[in-house]
């Protein structure tokens, strides 16, 4: 229950006490009932007044200052919370509905999300549309007072247990690619939706391919306006970058400097000059990035919108991981690449093998640099060969479009 007139420090104390009581010993992974656990935890967060801290109160949020969300995140970073099934909904889809949804959509979806009743996924990328999301080929064709959805999406996290998805589909192929896209809410349990797990390079399946075969969407499924889906996507991607960039390096990340310092002590490699220098430099880079994130938040609280600067967080965070991989190698040596079955080498190896994801997913480093260059620094765009071409005449991916 949210206390009125509470100071930031009182709030922090309340968060700390609650987490100590409710979150100690929880884990966010490995469990078969990960979804059930996540739903229980999200419901408990809601009941305690920690769900949607800065979301509007009329739709179930707490209506508070965004700084308090930051306070919550700081306190939570010491725990391995079972929240991953809700990350897309809480970090991207929900905030986008807050911005662009109809009152009806907000009423229908926000509170169930906050209460942990419904899981969301985001359906943007396609095999032929990666960095170039707007070249997507999934189509929604008007059908009576609704739409028929056909196509294939990929890299869809949480699709295997999602109740709803925010999907981008092409609704007009006669106009240039950005102008004929619409964003819809899709019921992931609807007939014609098929979800297939997709294995990543660590051997895990954190994401899926999703196939739509004549999936029927009602008319009120449109988020924003018809053919204005690109603007909606930009809004959602903005939330995504902030969400990725500002998530604190977690205590249990084997590549976090603190954990590598401990590993060096355990393996007795901390006196090696390369290990010492590597750990210090990694710590410094981590700390400076976290200070940047705090500053961004303070500016936002002071009324200066972060704009595209979330891209700096995301880019710097991804680059930081590469540095961490190198340091991990010097800390652990061959022990990073082969270990006894009874040892815990897996965690470090999986982290090393999973590192490329941060530089690709949610917009590659190259895309982030382009965003920073163009939207923040105002540098001119490259010649856009596809700008004025009707989508149906475009080459996309390794195929022809249409």
């Amino acid at each position: 229950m949210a206390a009125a007139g509470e100071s930031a420090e009182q709030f922090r104390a309340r968060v700390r006490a609650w987490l100590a009581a409710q979150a100690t010993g929880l884990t966010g992974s490995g469990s078969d009932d990960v979804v059930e656990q996540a739903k229980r935890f999200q419901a408990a967060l809601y009941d305690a007044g920690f769900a949607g801290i800065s979301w509007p109160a009329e739709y179930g949020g707490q209506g508070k200052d965004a700084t308090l969300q930051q306070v919550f995140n700081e306190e939570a970073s010491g725990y391995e919370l079972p929240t991953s099934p809700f990350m897309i909904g809480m970090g991207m889809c929900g905030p986008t509905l807050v911005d662009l949804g109809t009152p009806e959509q907000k009423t229908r979806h926000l509170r169930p999300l906050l209460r942990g009743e419904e899981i969301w996924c985001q359906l943007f990328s396609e095999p032929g549309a990666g960095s170039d999301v707007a070249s997507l080929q999934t189509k929604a064709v008007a059908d009576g007072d609704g739409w028929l959805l056909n196509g294939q999406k990929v890299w869809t996290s949480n699709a295997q247990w999602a109740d709803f998805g925010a999907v981008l589909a092409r609704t007009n192929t006669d106009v240039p690619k950005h102008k004929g896209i619409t964003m819809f809410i899709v019921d992931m349990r609807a007939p014609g939706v098929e979800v297939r797990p997709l294995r990543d390079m660590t051997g895990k399946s954190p994401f899926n391919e999703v196939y739509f075969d004549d999936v029927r969407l009602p008319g009120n499924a449109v988020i924003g306006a018809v053919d204005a889906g690109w603007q909606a996507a930009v809004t959602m991607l903005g939330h995504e970058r902030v969400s990725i960039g500002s998530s604190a390096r977690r205590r249990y990340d084997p590549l976090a400097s603190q954990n590598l310092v401990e590993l060096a002590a355990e393996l007795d490699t901390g006196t090696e000059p390369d290990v010492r220098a590597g750990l210090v430099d990694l710590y410094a880079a981590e700390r400076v990035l976290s200070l940047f994130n705090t500053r961004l938040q303070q500016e936002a609280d002071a009324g200066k919108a972060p704009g595209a600067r979330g891209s700096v967080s995301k880019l710097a965070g991804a680059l930081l991981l590469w540095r961490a991989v190198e340091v991990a190698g010097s800390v652990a040596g061959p022990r990073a690449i082969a270990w006894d079955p009874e040892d815990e080498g897996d965690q470090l190896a999986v982290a090393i093998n999973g590192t490329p994801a941060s530089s690709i997913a949610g917009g590659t480093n190259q895309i982030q640099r382009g965003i920073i260059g163009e939207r923040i620094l105002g540098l001119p765009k490259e010649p856009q060969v596809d700008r004025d071409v009707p989508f149906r005449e475009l080459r996309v991916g390794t195929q022809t479009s249409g």
Partner: protein
Amino acid sequence: MRLILDDEQQQLSATVHKVLADHAPATRVREVMTSDVGEDTDLWRRLSSELGVAGLVVPERFGGSGAGHVERCVVAEELGAALTPVPFFASAVLAVDTLLGLGDDEACAEFLPTVVSGESVAAVAMATADGMWGAKPLPVQAESTGDGWQLTGTAPYVLSGMLADVLLVYARTPDGTGVFAVRPDASGMTRVAARTLDPTRRIARLDFAAAPARRLGTGDAGELRRSVGELAAIALAAEQVGGMRRVLDMTVDYAKVRVQFGRAIGSYQAVKHTCADMYSDTEQAISALRYAAWAADHDRDALPGAAALAQLYIGPSYFRAAANAVQLHGGIGYTWEHDAHLYYKRAKSSELLFGGARQARERLAGLLDLPGGS
């Protein structure tokens, strides 16, 4: 912690910016840097007396405004951005911090008011023979005579040492580190102007042969020297951040207008992405700086770590940014007439001052509790 500037601090920044733009544009900087003195003494008096830039951390009773380190860093940022050749670092940072830290009210009352007003310039000798500011023995030895002290030895890397009206010297004494005031006309002292890589910052060497000196404060000033070094690292970080912002702006502006192969070079990813990396580095550097400045004012326990963090992160970042600025300007950036080289040299020189990355890394290693090290 607070990492953003309030309205008053932003106002200070804008004021200093305007004064420097009006009175110390690049043409003036070049004029001064090629002069014998190499520092703009008129401008320094004006900045001190009219804007109070030398007294921002000095209490009012000694003539300052008692504003704080965040404010001093705001000023340092602008001076670093404009490469203004004034004795700010020597007088308003090293000397002020030394005097304030001594706990010697008499010395403060004697020296600070004119230092703050710009009427006098003070310089500080605190480096070891190898140019570090760390633990090695000080290169100057003080010996007690009947009625005072005498200094003997060679003090390198004294910023604004030729210009100063008073020299504050950290020296070995039988009871630890002491701070001594020496007048420029003291017998037994010779000042030698060093040649420098960076034309906008003057450095001197001081040779002492039984030079009479006056001891300031009492007790061991070893800890003081360390904390003065930390505050100096933060003020330097502010200068560096100012320089980073300026070279980024210069480069972005140029990339928008310079055309090659029929389009602005800023439209090429090789240029655009490099600018994006410069921006990312700069934004992070600003954050590290604000934190360190905040710690200097509000959290002295965090100061050593914050200072080392700023120094370790910002030094190489500024040099990288300045080198990229030359690179992205192409041939014109490599000419003497273009200002890019002045930032390149300042960035390299700043990166190696005050012990550089090596010392900062060692200090952070200690704070991280890593074993080993020298």
